[in-house]
């Protein structure tokens, strides 16, 4: 079902001229409003820059004749008065634009869906909530949303402060331990938008990223349905062996695979790992080679992260990869 998004991310990244994480590549009304505000701010500031630098240059290099009388203070005072007047007018314009934009920003309203996001060290735990706020299923580092309807994120943290930022969709909101914040946004274009933690949160802050994937509502519904299923059972012997490796080698201590192992939520839920685009908090493409590398040397790839290396003999290793790839 997600085949349409199975294009290598790299290609997508190159197509966007502002980059995949650019606030100018807007995909929703909230981000778009900021760009309107930006152009107002930019125009005003450009005008001020040109005016001040211009005056500075003229003041410094204007020709002065030998016997020229000093400029009377009154004349300078009048010029200064004009400057102050213009400053006040421009500040008023800026503040008005700000407040109009903020009011629209703070607007509350009905949402189609609430998604609970908990900042972890250093990844994102994502739980989709039902109509009454009951958890439907859990996933990690990849958030699917339907296009065209506003969705709400419930942002929390049980460790340090993080910040949820998807530049193409909206401004950032912090995830604070002991507090709950909400962010309401809508995507009006299907696509993959990269987000990243924006509040310094420790050793792996730099690679704590995630993807928001906006899908047409029907595709999204399909995805939701698939996600709520338990993990797929192994089909062949190799995958069976892989499952046993998963259970015995220590993976299951931290990673939940629904229907197979329930862990105390130390690491991402892997029930539907295979269709995800990325691994390790959107740091690696989800391909066999990267998956293997990540399992055998996580500390080399993201030093200081909480996943230990798992030493396995090569057959077990291949079986485990096979099993994980089977988690459609």
């Amino acid at each position, binding site marked *: 079902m997600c085949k349409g998004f199975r294009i290598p991310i790299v290609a997508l990244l*190159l197509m966007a001229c502002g980059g995949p994480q650019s606030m100018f590549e807007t995909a929703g009304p909230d981000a778009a409003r900021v760009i309107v505000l930006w152009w107002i*701010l930019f125009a005003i500031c450009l005008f001020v820059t040109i005016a001040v630098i211009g005056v500075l240059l003229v003041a410094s290099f204007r020709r002065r004749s030998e016997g020229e009388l000093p400029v009377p203070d009154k004349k300078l005072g009048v*010029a*200064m008065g004009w400057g102050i007047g213009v400053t006040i007018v421009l500040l008023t314009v800026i*503040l008005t634009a*700000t407040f109009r934009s903020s009011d629209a920003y703070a607007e509350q309203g009905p949402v189609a869906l609430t998604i609970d996001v908990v900042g972890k060290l250093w990844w994102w735990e994502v739980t989709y909530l039902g109509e009454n706020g009951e958890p439907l299923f859990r996933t990690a580092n990849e958030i699917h949303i339907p296009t065209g309807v506003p969705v709400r994120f419930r942002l929390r943290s049980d460790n340090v402060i993080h910040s949820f930022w998807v*530049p193409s969709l909206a401004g950032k909101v912090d995830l604070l331990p002991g507090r709950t914040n909400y962010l309401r946004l809508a995507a009006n274009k299907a696509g993959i938008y990269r987000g990243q933690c924006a509040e310094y949160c420790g050793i792996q802050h730099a*690679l704590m990223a995630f993807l928001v994937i906006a899908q047409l509502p029907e595709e999204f519904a399909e995805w939701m349905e698939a996600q709520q299923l338990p993990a797929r059972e192994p089909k062949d012997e190799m995958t069976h062996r892989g499952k046993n490796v998963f259970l015995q080698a220590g993976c299951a201590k931290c990673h939940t695979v629904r229907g197979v192992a329930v862990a105390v939520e130390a690491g991402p839920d892997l029930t539907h790992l295979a269709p995800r685009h990325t691994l390790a908090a959107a740091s690696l493409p989800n391909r066999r080679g990267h998956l293997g590398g990540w399992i055998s040397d996580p500390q080399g790839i993201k030093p200081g992260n909480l996943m230990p290396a798992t030493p396995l003999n090569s057959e077990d290793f291949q079986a485990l990869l096979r099993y994980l790839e089977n988690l459609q």
Partner: protein
Amino acid sequence: MNTQTDDPVNHETLDCTWGNPFGLWGWFTIVNHKNIGIRYLVTAFIFFLGAGVLGVLMRVQLASPQNDFMGPDFFNQVFTVHGTVMMFLFAIPMVEGFAIYLVPLMIGTRDLCFPRLSAYSYYVFLIGGIALWISLFLGSAPDAGWFNYPTLALKEFSPSHRISVYATVISFIEVAALAAAVELIVTILKQRAPGMTLGRTSPFVWSILVAAIMIVFAMPGIVVASVMLAMDRLLETAFFQPALGGDVLLWQHLFWWFGHPEVYIIFLPATGIVSTIIPVFCGRPLFGYTAVVVAIISTGVISFGLWVHHMFATGLPTQADGFFAAASGLVALPTGIQFFAWLATIWGGRPVFKTPFLFCFGFISLFLIGGLTGVMVASIPFDLQVHDSYFVVAHFHYVLIGGVVFPIFGGIYYWWPKFTGRMLSERLGKLNFWMMFIGFNVAFFPMHNLGFRGMPRRIYTYLPDLGWDILNQLSTWGTYLLALGVLVLLINIVWSLRRGRPSGDNPWNADTLEWMTTSPPANYNFAEVPRITSLNPVWKDGPHPAPGVRGLREDAREIIITTSVEAEPQAVVELPGPSIWPFILAVISSIAFIGSIFSPWWYVAGFCGGLMAAACWFWPIKSTVSGKVER
């Protein structure tokens, strides 16, 4: 300059009275403000160079994606130490150094009011700074950023001693800065030469006064925050523990209550430097003196209403955000007034492009950009996008390098002849300026764009294909040029010390009072404390002003006290001389602070020891004047 033949002053006795003791032991007892000021300046500048090297290292790491020049563990220490040193160990101490050296000269007195306190302040600053650098070399430097937010800074998530080092170093800086602030406030209010009413006090002195008062009210925020943090880590109190009724935002409020005024605490003195230099090189008095002073004061006041704009993303109520957004925009107004005053002064004068003026020129254009991006980030919806991105990195480097470092460099070129009696090379100076100016822009302008492209701050690496590679590389090249530019100043300094042209007393034909005496000044600053009749005393009275204060004893460190507003002579007071006790007290304070990383009992012991040392410091001594003098 008072060397008329009928001069009633015995220079030799006076010089001996205000002179410094010799030898290694003597070095630790010196209290003269010029020595302490130079020590402050040199130490802060060395810290600046060190933190600058750290900045270059970070740029090397970020020059290409997935670079492995540094690992995250070291990088996080490096960026934390870079920020902490630049803000706490360079910016504040550097402006304090200028103030400690220049204020007594600019207001016409012979020393600061509490000479031993300034010595104490310096030693505390020095020891604290050295402690931080040692921690970096030991690999246990703070690594949670200069802002050091809990819960990351709590023991649960930072179990090693690194963050405790941070809390301790901050305590050192608080003590040093508060001591210097007390000293400067009282000196400026009580020791201005007769006739130097507040309305004849130079803008630089005004800016120092306002900055010092701001320190008094802003520093307690970080004092309380750092004590709470140290206790949360050491004694397991619960101030920042959400599960026990504490709150993580409490730290942010306290930290930024200090942290925002802090920016103006260093920026206002920088504007004071600019307001001093521009008139001299334009050959006319500063236009709009009153407006400038009013702007300095109102900037100081408004800056206490801005702290929440660092916290727009934390989800505070929108009404509160609105107030702080408005205040953040409003602070642009007094700054704008200062800009107009400088522009008008340049317009009305005949600017001479000597190096100090060039740096002010650079300051105006760079700070303009930093200030405007500041107005942009006051706009909440825009801020929510660029907050904690490289846009903000660009913004505050334009403010802090453009707005503070450039004026400081201008100040170094301008006052160097006052400090040493020699000139710095103009040719090297111009090279220095252009390398720094171009290097700075190449290094930091692209960062605005990086922020737009979604690059967050404080990341040790990034993935390729995010569109960040080329801009980062460009920025790194700019940094090299900027660093080389700073190196030119060092070369210039070495050159000047060896064969710089003797400067004479007033090489720039400047107007402020410090140029009325010799360069470098004698131990006693002024042979006769002058009487002031104008805002530009040297231009008005030349090197031989009207008769000033006579009858101060030459064999005692006597100064004249004046009223705080009108500067009417009020009393004669004797200042204390050299003493070892400030140094001893500083050592005891350091033991208490550093010990408190490990056990609270060190703090208790240090407090008791400190009381003893303070008693010795203030112990009545035999005075040359009146038998015994108390304190």
